[in-house]
């Protein structure tokens, strides 16, 4: 059968373009869920937070403006400085435990050749366990008696029972240990993604220069991860500054307020008293925390702006 050859135009004639241009009523209809939900449950409350921090609010009488009184009350609260100290301590320990571990794990895992997904799945597993379950489980692991889970393990190597959560010296590291366990997997996945993005040309170039494995890690891998490392650092600071679940469920701030964090203090201002709380003080403190975190982030990115480019 003779193939009928027809000249095929190399370029199809361009159709008259149909413009899809929103702006009509139907576009607005599609935006209704967004505008309603964000408006009522995000934008207005954020605005209201700012206003409320200057108001005396209770659930019975209309709010009245009190100027800076809420801020003065918060700053005069002796517990505030305890909470600031505890939160900083938590953030510091979380960096100490939690920052290097996922990085080292991810660099090692990126070199795994078989069953790689098994490694990452195992590392991520603690992240999917409901945080409340994790804390309640660890609370039992931290049992201070000699038959507590961790104390049994320590007993194998002859270390006496530690009273994890009851001792104001060991309580904070105990909380941080659990929090790190619960969150590290997420960071590992981020680093793994970043590591696959490192161009192999760079390693090959380094090898031509006879770079050792350590030098490749230090002079190629680390600089390539710098951008991600900077972001996870500030995200971790912002996250740990708002730690709530661990101190709330493990110790409720105890012993002797040694784990009262800023968020626990905000919660206690607003909700600990069932008759209606110090909503003004709670919002004033949360606004202050948000402003400090915002300034910190801006300052941080200013300072590190030069580093992240490579």
């Amino acid at each position, binding site marked *: 059968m003779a193939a009928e050859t027809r000249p095929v135009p190399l370029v199809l004639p361009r159709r008259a373009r*149909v413009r*899809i*241009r*929103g*702006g009509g009523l*139907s*576009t607005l209809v*599609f*935006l209704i*869920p*967004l505008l309603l*939900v*964000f408006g*009522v*449950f*995000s934008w207005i409350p*954020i605005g209201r*937070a700012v206003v*409320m921090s200057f108001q005396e*609010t209770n659930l019975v009488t209309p709010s009245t403006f009190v100027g800076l009184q809420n801020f003065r009350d918060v700053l005069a609260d002796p517990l505030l400085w305890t909470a600031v100290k505890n939160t900083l301590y938590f953030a510091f320990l979380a*960096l100490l435990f939690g*920052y290097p571990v996922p990085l080292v*794990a991810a*660099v090692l895992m990126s*070199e795994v050749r078989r069953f790689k997904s*098994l*490694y990452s*799945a*195992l*590392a*991520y*597993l*603690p992240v*999917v*366990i*409901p*945080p*409340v*379950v994790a804390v309640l489980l660890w609370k039992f692991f931290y049992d201070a008696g000699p038959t507590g*889970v961790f104390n049994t393990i320590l007993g194998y190597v002859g270390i006496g029972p530690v009273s994890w959560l009851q001792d104001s010296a060991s309580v904070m590291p105990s909380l941080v240990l659990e929090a790190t366990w619960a969150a590290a*997997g*997420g*960071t590992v996945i*981020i680093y793994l*993604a970043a*590591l696959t993005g490192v161009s192999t040309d760079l390693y090959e170039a380094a090898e031509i220069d006879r770079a050792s494995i350590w030098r*490749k890690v230090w002079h190629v*891998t680390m600089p390539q991860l710098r951008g991600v490392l900077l972001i996870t650092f500030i995200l971790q600071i912002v*996250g740990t500054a708002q*730690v709530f679940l661990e101190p*709330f*469920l493990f110790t409720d701030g105890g012993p002797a307020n040694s784990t009262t964090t800023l968020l626990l203090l905000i*919660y206690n201002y*607003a*909700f600990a008293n069932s008759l209606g709380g110090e909503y003004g003080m*709670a919002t004033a403190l*949360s606004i202050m*925390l*948000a402003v400090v975190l*915002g300034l910190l982030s801006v300052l941080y990115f200013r300072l590190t702006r030069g580093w992240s480019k490579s």
Partner: protein
Amino acid sequence: MSRGILSPADWRRPRVRWTAFGLHGVLLAVLFVVGLGPMLWLAKAAITPTQDTLRSPLALWPHGVDWSNLATAWTRVEVDKYFLNTVVLAAGSWFMQLLVATTAGYALSVLRPRYGKVITAVVLATLFVPAVVLLVPLYLTIVDPPLLKASLINSFWAVWLPAGANAFNILLVQRFFDNLPREVFEAARVDGAGPFRLFWSVVLPMSRPILGVVSVFAIIGAWKDFLWPMLVLPDPNLQPLSVRLPALQKFVEFDVFLAALAISTVIPVLLFGLFQRFFLNSGALNGAVKG
């Protein structure tokens, strides 16, 4: 061939090879103990009598297996009720998040009205506001919602509605919609599809992957949620598992309590098992919120 830090030549050197294998073996062992260990322990403890768990918590083989723990937790402690509450809360939050994210993503990324940029900016700006700022004013909004006469306290809507205000979802969906081929939309338009038809029959079917990602994170997120449902659902009959578990601890026998913890873990772990790639590929940003 893909390679990492170690070159094929490195791999051929026995010393490097065995060090790498050794380190990977140690790492795998540590990951097993740290990642899977607590879950396995919980699974064992859930069917172990209290005395065994308390006396020798690390014994591999309990003296007796007590399957009734699970049944007791499920029926007498009413974990079934809290489980159902959790499912209903997660389902509603999932629906709200999909509704808001898909309609908004469609309007902003496909229809692209002139004022779209402003709305996108205001939505994304909320990502930079720490969640703590919202806590009290959002609570007061629920106590005394606008337009409604009644308080939403002790109503599932108090959890469902705010769940929709998730800027991260909008960001994900918008980025996905931006990359869909516009020629397809234009062709659909030529064939006479209106904006609603275009949304339902063209854009949504093309967006299955991103809808899957948003769905899985919505459900897991709702399952993990604690502080917010605790505040707005003070009635124990309405509370989800996460809120109820700390209270149960005080009046439930220990082995039954551990069984309840195990039951609460099953669904998220199952979802993780089924949708691993969502977590391990695209989940990167979500896990980064806390250190």
